[in-house]
């Protein structure tokens, strides 16, 4: 770490905010565990899992990793590349459906002889 910032003191946040987020994370983890405990199925399970997951991820990034307090220049640099991942996920969903379809199709119907 070869360069030193001219300004020595870095301002910190009150301890309360960390404890709050910490508590929230426990509560959310408990909720997502309950999704399994009560064996919700189908779309309900899916959406609950995803909601709790994104909430937890968001809290960790925003407060524990201080992204909430960072300047937009950094935040945007970090978040925009995720569109490539989103595109990858989206297309791979279409791809696995097609793979599954063709596996079942050729298994039951068979190919052209």
């Amino acid at each position, binding site marked *: 770490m070869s360069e030193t910032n001219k300004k020595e003191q870095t301002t910190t946040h009150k301890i309360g905010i960390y404890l709050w987020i910490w508590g929230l994370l426990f509560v959310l983890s408990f909720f997502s565990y309950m999704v399994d405990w009560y064996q919700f199925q189908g779309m309900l399970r899916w959406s609950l899992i995803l909601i709790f997951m994104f909430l937890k991820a968001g809290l960790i990034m925003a407060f524990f990793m201080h992204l909430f307090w960072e300047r937009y220049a950094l935040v945007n640099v970090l978040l925009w590349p995720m569109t490539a991942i989103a595109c990858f996920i989206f297309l791979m969903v279409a791809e696995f459906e*097609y793979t599954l379809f063709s596996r079942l199709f050729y298994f039951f119907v068979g190919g052209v002889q």
Partner: protein
Amino acid sequence: MSDELENKSGYQAQSSETVNEYSGSAVGDVDYVRPAEVSDQDLYHGHSFITKWVFCQDAKVIGVQYFLTAVFTGIVGLILSWLMRLQLGFPGLAGFMTAEHYYQFVTMHGMIMVVYFLTALFLGGFGNYLIPLMVGARDMVFPYVNMISFWMFFVAVAVLMASFFVPGGPTGSGWTLYPPQAILEGTPGSGAGILLMLISLSLFVIGFTMGGLNYLITVLQARTRGMTLMRMPLTVWGIFTATVLAMLAFPALLVSSIMMTLDKVLETSFFMPTIIKAGEVLGYGGGSPILFQHLFWFFGHPEVYIVALPAFGIVSDLISVHSRKNIFGYRMMVWAIVGIGALSFFVWAHHMYVSGMNPWFGFFFATTTLIIAVPTAMKVYNWILTLWRGNIRINTVMLWCLGFIVTFVNGGITGIFLGNVSVDVPLSDTYFVVAHFHMVMGIAPLMVIMGAVYHWFPLVAGRILDEGLGKWHFWITFLGAYSIYFPMHYLGFIGVPRRYFEMYDSPYMTSGVGLNEFISLAAFIVGAAQFILIYNIIKTLKTGKLAGKNPWQANSLEWQTSTVPPEHGNFGEKLPVVHRWPYDFSVPGAKDDFIPQTVPPSEVIDTEVEKT
């Protein structure tokens, strides 16, 4: 005029009281530049031979180390291509050559040239040498990590070369390493060869990540005073964007390497379907070979631009300097580089039109692929418009640049053919594809590398390369490269498939046999011509003309160092302060035809400089 200049200096309204202790001039002055945000970089200076030249932390030495290692692997790749052409042009002439050998040479040639030669040369070599100099930094921001990065690359190359000497030889599965055949018996090098290849790639990714972090943070956080992003030379923009692509694309390669290693070693079935071999069911089952192709090309397509974008950037600078004219549409050029970089993550499956993926993907990927043609064409227009009515110096550097433009346009246009699904299907896996990608990402970036070597050699070594030899080198390479790849398009049209060891008496080869011999002869000559450069370098190092400072009258910071070649720390006592972009050539009213970036506005008050 002077009003404009005052507006340009920007910050006087906010802090008109403070006196700037760094440049010694008061705020409100046209020459005012904000003081430095961070204190001067702390550098580790080597004391012994080992810390100065071997485990060196100076980015310039690391750059040269990268360059030499990459050139060494490049020569291995060149020799492999000779052997391939020998077989294709004159089947059976080389007695030792079996089909297995041929596939191994194809594979190693491809992998070496794309990853270990071009990527390492552009990002590791030119990136390390030029980024700190061009943005006005003392060194890369993490010199120690940078040093480790090179040695990681060195080990990766050593592992790759070791695969030539293991039982079974190197892998022969094609540079794309498609499973299932890459790790199945029967493919040459399916034992130790493929394992070493996967390990070597993983090491390369790890090493490159270390280097890439350095390049990115140096560009983003360690620029000198006055150096805004829009005042950076396009070389830096090209290398920077390529590094961003590398940081985001190499993970896919790492992941696919790990998964394939597990398939090979632990017999997992990530990529391996149920396979019946000679009546016997293998232990694999249920995997998805197409997943590997998606992962590989999610890396592979950005990889094409990792090679191309630095070439775009460098050639823009060379053209501007040697035609004494500012680059046409600088901002457009920057946005085109960034746009191409961003789009390159959304086009990968155009390599997979015939792979059996979801057929609807063709629409999506053909569309995105053709959209990339727009920023690329903008760049070509801008290069030509930069040349237009410029004071062109037809020296070796300029010849290479012109050669690049022609080759690149040629390769780019065939790319439009291949980007359309319906046109691609009959052309898939023919020599048309080989000709296309060699033109566009083999020869074109190579032309830029050559131009860059002739351009920056005076900075690295302090002597100018011989122009006469350089011109011979250029013309043989340029005409020879066209003799090789132009007929290949035709071979592709008549349907000659790529990766075939020998065509035997195929009926459509009647007109192709002579062409194949001609191509091979041209390939031998072009390959041999590259040694002219090596001879030129050795000769110049001994007896070449001394370059002095700034032999090309360029503006960018690397030519403004206190000594030539620059010493460790680059700029002597004080870092330069930047007042303008690097393209103020032939400015009306100026005393010289160039205004270096460090010249303050007060010295060129009556000239019509661009506002940057």
